[in-house]
């Protein structure tokens, strides 16, 4: 009976971007789209109220007051990255709302032409990995998001918004406190790297949408751990491959290809060259062995057994809450850390911040290992769905217990993040203004901060509304 129900539950299908999703995949997609809905308005608000306001009220008036004193493309260089980011985050927000509407509206599969749907029963070949339908959907989503970020980086690069990351990539150390590069390399190497990433993303998007039905039980599907190791190794390999080109085009006879004369080598350059080679070989090694990682058979949990997380017993609700909080906090902090890394380079981080990042990654992997078990996942969804009838209204949608728990988890987690941001704004402004060296901010800066606080307050009210309408889903059990 239970197995029949399990089967039935996982055949409840939703279609998103033509991908057929079962209940488990829909649940994860709902969590991701809710994270977008709760976090993206804040990022968009900061783009408008901080960066755009600075451009409109400070940069543009200064330029028009005395245009001759500014560079040729001054306005383009200032406005293009800002407007690009605003467009990209608006697109992400639209996609999140679109996914949420699709998932909550319970649209029947019958309405859609089945030939156009990418079915569950398929195996996708991606960089030599055999991916299941769920994994292919994960890679597709990741590639789609990355594609937008790469376009943003390329536009920023073309707008001469060269950041520390690009400099660190192209400058080769030539002494204890000096480094050298060339303008041709500085102009082309970062662009080549972003183009390579762009190509990988395009390939992933097309490869994961293949409709070839070739599902067979004999074919071994890759583990999620091997995919994560491969992606990390591929990024490191691509970055250091570009740095290797910098070495080759500056210190060998290949320099003549781009019209330069080779520079003389020294101990610092040679040391860096050895490091680059070691990292290239290391990342290539991990890229290759990731194909041989076996998918570990998870232990089946019986009725009397339970799973724990740091000795805390995970009930059904706690499991869903933990999964939602993990995805929420890691989406938020990885966005912050990755953005910082690709803008300011590795030297931006202090050693204690690096230790903190490493600790966070270890906790994340530990949690992922605990919650990444399809059987337990399905059992928990079954159990929650088997419980007494529960339906609540959330805006114009009727939501069941499972979706209510997810909404409660994301809204309460977002409330914590908003409060944290409010406190950090409050504290940084207070300590800056009270600093003896403070020279004063423009009135625009204070208006920006007040508008940011107003946006945070609005989002807090939205989160409170969601908590109020969904809290009963965890209360009554």
């Amino acid at each position, binding site marked *: 009976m239970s197995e029949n129900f399990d089967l039935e539950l996982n055949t409840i299908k939703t279609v998103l971007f033509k991908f057929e999703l079962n209940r488990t995949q829909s649940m994860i997609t709902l969590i991701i789209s809710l994270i977008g809905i709760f976090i993206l308005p804040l990022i968009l608000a900061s783009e408008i109220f901080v960066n755009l306001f600075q451009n409109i009220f400070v940069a543009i008036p200064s330029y028009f007051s005395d245009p001759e004193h500014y560079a040729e493309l001054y306005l383009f260089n200032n406005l293009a990255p800002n407007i690009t980011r605003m467009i990209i985050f608006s697109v992400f927000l639209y996609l999140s709302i679109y996914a949420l509407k699709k998932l909550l509206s319970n649209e029947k599969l019958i309405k859609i032409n089945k030939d156009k749907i990418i079915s569950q029963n398929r195996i996708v070949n991606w960089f030599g990995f055999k991916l299941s339908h769920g994994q292919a959907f994960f890679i597709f989503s990741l590639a789609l998001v990355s594609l937008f970020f790469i376009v943003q980086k390329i536009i920023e690069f073309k707008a001469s918004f060269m950041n520390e990351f690009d400099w660190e990539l192209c400058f080769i150390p030539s002494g204890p406190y000096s480094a050298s590069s060339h303008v041709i390399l500085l102009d082309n190497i970062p662009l080549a790297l972003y183009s390579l990433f762009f190509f990988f993303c395009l390939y992933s998007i097309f490869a994961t949408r293949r409709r070839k039905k070739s599902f067979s039980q004999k074919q071994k599907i890759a583990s999620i751990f091997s995919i994560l190791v491969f992606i990390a190794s591929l990024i490191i390999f691509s970055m250091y491959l570009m740095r290797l080109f910098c070495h080759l085009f500056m210190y060998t006879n290949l320099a003549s290809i781009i019209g330069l004369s080779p520079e003389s080598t020294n101990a610092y350059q040679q040391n860096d060259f050895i490091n680059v080679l070691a990292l290239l070989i290391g990342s290539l090694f991990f890229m290759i062995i990731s194909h041989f990682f076996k998918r570990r058979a998870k232990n089946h949990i019986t009725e009397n057994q339970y799973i724990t997380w740091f000795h805390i017993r995970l009930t059904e609700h706690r499991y869903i809450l933990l999964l939602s909080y993990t995805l929420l906090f890691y989406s938020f902090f990885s966005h912050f850390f990755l953005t910082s890394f690709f803008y300011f380079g590795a030297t931006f981080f202090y050693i*204690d911040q690096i230790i903190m990042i490493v600790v966070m990654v270890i906790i994340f992997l530990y949690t992922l290992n605990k919650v990444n078990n399809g059987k337990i996942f399905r059992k928990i969804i079954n159990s929650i769905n088997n419980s007494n009838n529960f339906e609540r209204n959330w805006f114009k949608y009727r939501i069941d217990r499972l979706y209510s728990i997810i909404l409660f988890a994301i809204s309460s987690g977002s*409330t*914590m993040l908003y409060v944290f941001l*409010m406190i950090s704004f409050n504290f940084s402004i207070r300590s800056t203004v009270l600093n003896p060296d403070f020279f004063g901010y423009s009135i625009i800066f204070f208006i920006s901060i007040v508008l940011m606080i107003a946006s945070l307050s609005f989002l807090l009210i939205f989160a409170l509304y969601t908590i109020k309408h969904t809290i009963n889903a965890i209360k009554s059990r």
Partner: protein
Amino acid sequence: MLNILYEITRFSSFLIIGFTLIRWYGKKKGWSYNVKIDLLLILSWNVIMSLLLIVMDLMVDNFLHSLVYFYQGIYLLFLILMLFISFFLNLYIGFLLFKILYKQNKQDAFIIILIIVIMELIIDNLVLYPSLLSFALNK
């Protein structure tokens, strides 16, 4: 740095808004408590939180600046501590006082206590920025 005018404004606005909200919610839920109990809840809650925040302010003035100079990570730890005190501890004290004074299940008051805590944080910011703006412009 402790700003007396800011602290007084924050304290009184929290008192007025907190009291109004708890009276409104009590009427909505049909709790029949008199004004004195509602006032006692908000007043005692506010006093405890104000004392804790003043202690934190003094800690920042005396220790944090010198520690941040050596360890950047302390800044983030301090923000997490502030989150713990002004949100989680604030909620906990609210629940505790509610349980002691109203002798009801604290789950009934979850939403109203959360609303009061969040309102307090928003008011804190709304009061802070005008005071800082005048300070910054006069400097």
